[in-house]
């Protein structure tokens, strides 16, 4: 059991979200980097979409009130056990002793979101079928808000510390494809969007021909981009203005009148009115979720058929890791249940 002493920049409870409530105007929500959420959970023997804490850039300070295990995945945000001067590696389940404190330092490398798992998942009530914090609706997670001092994180399963030491068999960091070399300029794969034809070929060419920088206004709703100096030649085409509102998907790249694209993320509004020249492929959603302000991004076009093949490979690599995890650990039953 953990208690929040000092909250981080934005710590929220997230799970697989509530995609089935989109027709009520509810954002799908869920982890911005679903791959890393699954890694954190699976190491713990949880279902891949069990509730975790998503930590953003600057993590919280957590007091360990009862001895427990903590799984860490996603970006390395410099977690340590203060009293023991023990760094907590990513891709591992750590044992934490009552009376100690977990703190976070500065982001140690790439990415901006870390995922924290407890045995059985974080114990919070489900709202509309999900534990995810819906910030706009102020429901889900813990009272519909980011974590704050005094909040208690309880494991949903009786803690027996047997998961301690479990390591993710593949790279526990930022997911497959090694596309998240954000500091060097991430290459994110896209397919032409529903308005690619209407906007004309130059729009897609401008989007893919330029380098983009992630703006600090980015949040769980969307990654905001502006052209780097090199990218200035690429205003992504003429903007056709606002369209009659239509349902939109995560990964859609909206083009507002100012020509600065917004990549929609987990908490995006369910409908939008800006033209969508391209969409990030599902297999790269986890990479988008790790883009930090200042990172640079390039977009590479693939066909929808290729994107779907890549997604099946993405899932297969997760299944392979789960099989390896099951082979080397005592948690195999839980992993089987997790649908590996």
């Amino acid at each position, binding site marked *: 059991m953990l208690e929040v002493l000092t909250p981080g920049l934005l710590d929220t409870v997230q799970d697989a979200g509530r995609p089935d409530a989109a027709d009520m105007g509810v*954002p799908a929500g869920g982890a911005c980097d679903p791959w890393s959420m699954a890694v954190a959970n699976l190491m713990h023997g949880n279902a891949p979409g069990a509730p975790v804490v998503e930590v953003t850039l600057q993590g919280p300070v957590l007091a360990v009130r009862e001895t427990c295990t903590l799984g860490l995945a996603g970006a390395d945000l410099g977690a340590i056990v203060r009293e023991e001067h023990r760094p907590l590696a990513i891709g591992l389940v750590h044992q934490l002793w009552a009376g100690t404190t977990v703190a976070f330092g500065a982001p140690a490398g790439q990415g901006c979101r870390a995922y924290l798992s407890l045995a059985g998942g974080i114990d919070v009530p489900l709202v509309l079928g999900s534990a995810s914090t819906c910030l*706009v609706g102020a*429901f*889900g997670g813990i009272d519909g808000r980011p974590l704050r001092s005094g909040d208690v994180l309880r494991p949903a399963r009786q803690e027996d510390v047997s998961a301690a030491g479990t390591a993710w068999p593949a790279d526990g960091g930022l997911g497959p494809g090694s596309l998240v070399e954000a500091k060097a300029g991430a290459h994110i794969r896209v*397919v032409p969007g529903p308005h690619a034809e209407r906007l004309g070929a130059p729009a897609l060419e401008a989007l893919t021909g330029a380098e983009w920088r992630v703006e600090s206004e980015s949040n769980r709703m969307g990654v905001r981009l502006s052209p780097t100096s090199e990218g200035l030649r690429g205003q992504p085409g003429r903007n056709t203005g606002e369209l*009659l509102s*239509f349902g939109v998907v995560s990964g859609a790249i909206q083009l507002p009148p100012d020509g600065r694209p917004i990549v929609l993320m987990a908490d995006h509004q*369910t409908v939008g009115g800006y033209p969508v020249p391209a*969409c990030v*492929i599902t297999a790269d959603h986890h990479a988008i979720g790790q883009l930090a302000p200042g990172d640079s991004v390039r977009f590479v076009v693939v066909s929808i058929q290729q994107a779907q093949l890549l997604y099946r490979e993405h899932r297969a690599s997760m299944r392979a890791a789960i099989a390896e995890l099951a082979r080397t650990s005592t948690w195999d039953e839980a992993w089987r249940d997790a649908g590996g």
Partner: protein
Amino acid sequence: MKSADRPQIIAFGDSALLLELGDQIDLELNRRVHALAKVVRDDGAWGTPVPAYASLLVPYDPAEIGVDEAVDRLSALFARAGTAAKRAPVEADAEPVEADAVPGEADTEPLEVPVRYGGEHGPDLDEVARGHGLRPQDVVALHSGVTYRVYMLGFAPGFAYLGGLPPELATPRRATPRDRVPPGSVGIAGQQTAIYPMATPGGWQLIGRTDLKVWDPSAEPPALLQPGRRVRFRPVV
């Protein structure tokens, strides 16, 4: 594309299709959108469809089916449901929409929404009135004098886009959106009006406020205003 006679299915990314029935706010078009949403929900082979004014977003699992098969299956589903919609534009035989196909139409009586217009509750009322050469009380009379209809939900949980605004009240969004619109605020944007279910940023012109709770995640259904529901505003002090 002006109306329902040329519906099209296009890919929206690698995991959804978008059915476009038209590009305007039109009652019959919108009723068909919701009827088709019901067809998709009832079929059970898709993610939850998201109906909008004149389009329907239909998610699918790309690990299960490819895009071409998804388009074929959805076309076939709509063909069976009596509404042809193919990748290539075709003439559709627009069947009348069944009576129970649009959820909010089951309530025949309009929902009455009590609104305190103007002042601190509707900080943009005077400006909206000035912009149209009207007195504030004329705006109130016009806004509360007609029956609206829920066309779609979006923007925020339970946020219902109401169509039927008297044309003389049509007003563009504010140039600079507010960082925080109080919950219950009644706003105008373009030819639409709506109630903000919760405190959110927002760019609509705020003319009043209601105490009626239009969103409650623990209620069934959580959104009080369902597509097709008719709504009237009643001025209160």
